[in-house]
């Protein structure tokens, strides 16, 4: 067995609220992402999904527990990971091509080579011809594509994606999901994908992890998705196995969603 790309062991993360209390966001998080697999985390809003991703990225140290990446403990930023944040992160004062090549430029790649690479990535995500625009001149979906290119250009071994498509309309979203699967199949990356959309999680992943509602959320369900690959997002939902697993996860997820609402 090869070393997993990411491993969390009994991770707990607390926050200090403005009033000085300790708020436990997540606890008892154990997860393993074998190299090259696609794992999703699903859970109700505010349950700590982004927190887990920040811990894996090394942006937030865990309060307790251990974070491993490719067999080594993570201290400081996790250099194996590329992170697509939930928020918009393109630099508004840089053109799209300059945004996409940033990771290479900061690694000392010559501006000519970096630009060439960035252009070819922009073509892959369907943004050829938009190189010299500024982010505010693109639509939300186009900015997300540019962000994907910006993250992937440095060739991360683990891709962390925080609800990347949640702000998109249904059509754009399906196209982008397909593209993501394509990009992932062509590379050897692992993906840790956050979503609150169960349908999306099942369609894309090898494994779906279900997070309970907070405070102190933990993983309360693990479901292997054994639908054949390569998958086509347009038809995957019609496969017999899909509905079966969907029903199974949903019955458990629904209880968690109800708990979240009951708490409010």
């Amino acid at each position: 067995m090869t070393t997993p790309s990411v491993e969390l062991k009994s991770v707990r993360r607390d926050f200090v609220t403005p009033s000085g209390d300790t708020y436990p966001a997540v606890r008892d998080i154990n997860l393993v992402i074998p190299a090259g697999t696609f794992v999703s985390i699903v859970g109700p809003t505010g349950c700590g999904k982004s927190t887990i991703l920040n811990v894996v990225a090394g942006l937030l140290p865990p309060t307790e527990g251990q974070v491993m990446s490719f067999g080594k403990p993570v201290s400081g930023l996790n250099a194996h990971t590329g992170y697509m944040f939930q928020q918009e992160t393109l630099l508004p004062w840089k053109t799209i091509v300059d945004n996409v090549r940033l990771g290479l430029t900061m690694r000392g790649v010559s501006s000519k080579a970096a630009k060439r690479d960035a252009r070819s990535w922009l073509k892959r995500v369907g943004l050829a011809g938009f190189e010299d625009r500024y982010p505010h001149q693109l639509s939300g979906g186009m900015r997300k594509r540019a962000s994907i290119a910006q993250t992937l250009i440095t060739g991360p071994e683990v891709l962390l994606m925080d609800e990347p498509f949640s702000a998109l309309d249904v059509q754009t979203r399906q196209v982008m999901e397909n593209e993501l699967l394509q990009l992932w199949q062509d590379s050897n990356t692992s993906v840790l994908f956050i979503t609150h959309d169960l349908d999306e999680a099942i369609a894309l992943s090898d494994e779906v992890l279900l997070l309970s509602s907070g405070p102190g959320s933990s993983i309360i369900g693990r479901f292997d998705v054994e639908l054949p690959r390569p998958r086509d997002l347009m038809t995957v939902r019609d496969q017999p196995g899909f509905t079966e697993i969907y029903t199974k996860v949903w019955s458990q997820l629904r209880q968690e969603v109800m708990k979240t609402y009951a708490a409010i």
Partner: protein
Amino acid sequence: MQQSDLPVRRTARARARRRRWIVHSLQVAIAVVILGGWQLGSNTGFVDSFFFSKPSDIAARAYDWIKTGYILDDLAVTLQEAFYAFVLGSLAGGAVGFLLGRVRLLAEVFDPYIKMLNALPRVVLAPIFLLWFGLGISSKVAFGFTLVFFIVFFSTFQGVRNVDRILVDNVRMLGGKRRHVLRHVLIPSTATWIFSSLHVSVGFAIVGAVVGEYLGASQGVGYRIAQSEGTFDTTGVFAGMTILTLVVLVIDLAVNRIERRLLRWKLDEHMT
């Protein structure tokens, strides 16, 4: 679809053009009414031209001053003072603002002093600066500096404090070190705030120079205005004001262009 849109777009453009024409006409009309009324009032003695002069005299005087070159040396001195005040004030304000924005402890320690200095009505400094730096240009530069400094200081400080955390995190995740974060996020983000105060700081640099000259100098537009005032020459006072206003307008247009260039990533012009 395309064809049916076209006439709609054309009428919209025609409407916009018509509207612009109306606005311009009304603007000209206002100027004509005010200047014409003023002129007429002084001609008929309804307005006392000793106190208010009259537009035709003011225009003639301004033209004369420019043609003979009488005012041009003064203008050069005033602009030179404003320029130094602007450059030095911006550099110092930017540097201190950046430092205090980055180092929390310094910001907390200096907070009351900065509030105090900013609350001080700056005009009272002018006489002191005259004593310290003399009647030459240094005292005006120093005075303009105190005005520009705080404008730039506050916008830089705000700019550094308001840097979007997520942009910093993203650049770090892309492999950026401290210097990369500084170069690609902190400086451009702060520069936006500084540029947005460009109009105000340029204006204050000129105000500093003119007010400084007015209070004590041997050259400069402010000095000419003060001199005319001393001889009850209201025409001279208004002529000085008119020339100054025109020059500031031209500078403001130039600042507009610079701002548009520097903040082009914010503009919608190139959208298709």
